[in-house]
Structure formats: C-alpha cells, structure tokens
C-alpha cells in the first residue's frame, strides 16, 4: 500500500505526529493506521537477540520481563517518557521513525548497537542503528518501508541511563545519555546535543585508555549542542561532561 499510494504517513501511538497535525504544522493529509497490527507488538528472544516489535508501547517495555532483564536502561528511558497516558500509547517504532534529536530511547539503541528491521512489500532488511539516520529527522527508510521491529543483541556490561529534562516528569530532554561499560570498553551515546543522536566514539576511545578527563574534554568536541527555548548550548555541554563523569564513577567497580 505504501508503495502504491505514495505519500501515506504511518501512524501508530500518535503521540508525536498527531500533535503536529492538530496544530496545523503537518502538511501531509493521508495516513495509514498501524495501531491494530498486533503482530508488531511482540517482544521475544531469538537466540541471543532480543526482538522488540515496532508497536511495543513504553508500558509494554516497562512490564516486559525480557526487557527488564536484558536492557534495563531501555526500561529506565521508557519510564521517563511522559506519564502513564503517553506510555500507554507511545511506541518504540514511533520514537525511532520520528527521529527527534531528543528521543529518549535513541541513545539507548545507539549504545547497544541495535538493528532496525524494515519491511516493504518486496523485502525485509536489517539496518544497523549507526547507519539509520542521515540528518535532522531524516533516515534511510524508503517510502515503501515500515519499521517492524528493533533487535538488540546481548549487552555486555553495566548499563547506565540518565535523562535531564525541564522538570521531573513529562519533560523533553535537555541532555540524555545512555552508557554501557564492560571491562575496558565503553559505549556512550547522547541525545539533545546535536541534530541526531550522537554515539561518542572518540570519547569511548579515551575512556578505553582509562582517561576520564581526556574523555570529558573530547566529549565537548564530539557534540554540537545549541541554544533553544529549553536550554543553552553552554549548559548542555557542561552537563554532558558531568553526566559522563557520573557514568564513569557509578560504573567503576568499587
């Protein structure tokens, strides 16, 4: 249908898209409702890979024993999105497709090297998260493709997540960070500090050398925060460095 009908916008939990529509800032007028597709809600394990259906809501992530066991930082992220009303409707597929720089699950998916499963009438392909976004709210999906699942390989090490919002609940992130640390290796990803989620690889290299001060300095160069109505570039930069240090301190075995 997407292939045949051209500009149809997929609609799931509607917690982002519908707001734009109702405020008149969305130009598209034709939608395809994915909500009834129960098959896209499944959370399951295939070997060592956790597969989460694109239509899994934040509530289902929070309640899933598998997600809690294997990717607790995804649960932490889901818990901080909106209140129960948003959590009951918002989906992980929607968070990915919407591609907001402040999307709270995105640093988590970046840090665990998730794989996005996209399907069209013709085929299905697996897109590594690192290659999914091409720019601000832009991704490699073809017009006839839908995200159907996101796959997360086994995560080795301690997971860490922190969101800094404009208030304690129902907040858009000013800075959001997900980290994984295992022995000598760390994965660090941040949101709200650039047009797309940042996987801070140079920072990770400095951390691998055990040099937290160099890592904090490097992080400041790897992110491109801006001033906007919610915060300042200066605040974001300083707090990102602070988050990195907090991550490092809290994941250091005592």
């Amino acid at each position: 249908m997407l292939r045949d009908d051209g500009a149809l916008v997929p609609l799931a939990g509607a917690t982002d898209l519908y707001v734009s529509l109702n405020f008149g800032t969305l130009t598209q007028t034709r939608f395809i409702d994915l909500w009834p597709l129960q098959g896209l809600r499944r959370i399951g394990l295939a070997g060592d890979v956790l597969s989460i259906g694109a239509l899994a809501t934040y509530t289902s992530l929070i309640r899933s024993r598998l997600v809690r066991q294997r990717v607790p930082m995804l649960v932490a992220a889901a818990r901080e999105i909106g209140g129960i009303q948003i959590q009951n409707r918002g989906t992980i597929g929607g968070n990915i497709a919407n591609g907001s720089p402040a999307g709270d699950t995105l640093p988590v998916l970046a840090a665990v090297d998730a794989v996005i499963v996209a399907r069209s009438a013709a085929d299905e392909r697996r897109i590594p998260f690192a290659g999914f976004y091409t720019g601000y709210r832009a991704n490699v999906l073809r017009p006839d493709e839908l995200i159907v699942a996101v796959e997360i390989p086994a995560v080795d090490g301690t997971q860490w997540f922190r969101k800094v919002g404009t208030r304690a609940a129902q907040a858009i992130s000013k800075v959001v960070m997900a980290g994984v640390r295992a022995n000598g290796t760390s994965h660090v990803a941040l949101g709200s500090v650039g047009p797309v989620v940042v996987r801070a690889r140079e920072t990770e290299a400095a951390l691998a050398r055990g040099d937290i001060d160099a890592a904090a300095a490097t992080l400041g160069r790897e992110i491109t925060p801006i001033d906007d109505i919610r915060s300042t570039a200066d605040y974001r930069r300083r707090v990102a460095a602070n988050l990195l240090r907090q991550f490092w301190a809290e994941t250091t075995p005592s």
Partner: protein
Amino acid sequence: MRFRLNGADVDIDAHPMRRLLDVLREDCGLTGTKEGCGEGECGACSVLIDGDCVVSCLVPFAQVEGCSVTTIEGIDAEPLQRAFMDEVGAQCGICTPGMIIAAATLGANPTRQEMQQALAGNLCRCTGYEAIFRAIRAAKRQGGAPAAAADAGR
C-alpha cells in the same frame, strides 16, 4: 465506527482522523472529558481505552474501533469522586475528571510514590497535589480499588 462506550455498544459516524476527545464531547454529548492543552501534556482529557489510561486529545477516532472506552460519565468510581470533593482534592474541578480516570488505575492503599507516578501526566494548578493524594488515600482505604467500568478488558 463500532465500539463500546461506557458499557454500551455504539456505532458512531465521524471522520477517522478526528480526535477522540472531540467525538466524545461533540458527537456523543459527553462533556465531562475536558480539553486543557491539545498536546497531551495536561491529562484533563484522560479516558480509559480497554482499561488503559490515555489522553483522548492524541487518539485518532479510527483507533477505538472494537475497543472499550470509559469516560468520567461511565466510570464506576464513586468513592473516589466523593473523596475528591470531601478532601478538597478538587478546587476548580477542571482537572478532576482526568485525575479520577488516572487515579482509578491505582490499586488499594497506594504509596505516595505510586500516586505521584500514576498522576505524573495530570496537571493541577489549584491544589499542589497534596489534597489529591489525601483524597485517593481516603477512597482507596474504603475497601479496595474501584472497578473501571462494565467491561474493561478487550
């Protein structure tokens, strides 16, 4: 669109992309669900869909097909409603229907933290939330959680 509304089977003809909030208020004459922001932030438009608390300003009407919708007019939550008035959990009252819908999802004897989490998506400007917690505690102490509606499951 065929669905269950406050325990009764209904068939309502409305554009599928209209907000559920507007269909309830305008087509069904159920004005108890309120609009406070239209962006899903204030929770005043909260309803239950298959027992889940959602903001109806963000639900396209198409998505309630075959579901069970419960509004403040249909919810079985008399102890909560009474407690909100007696404990002054409602001052101006505009957030109250949404608050009660959200509070109805709590179990018996909720802790302060559980109440905070359940109501984090419902804004109140009048009470500072303390009296809302008192009201919920009082209601949920009176013999268990109120049932959501005639049929909450799908």
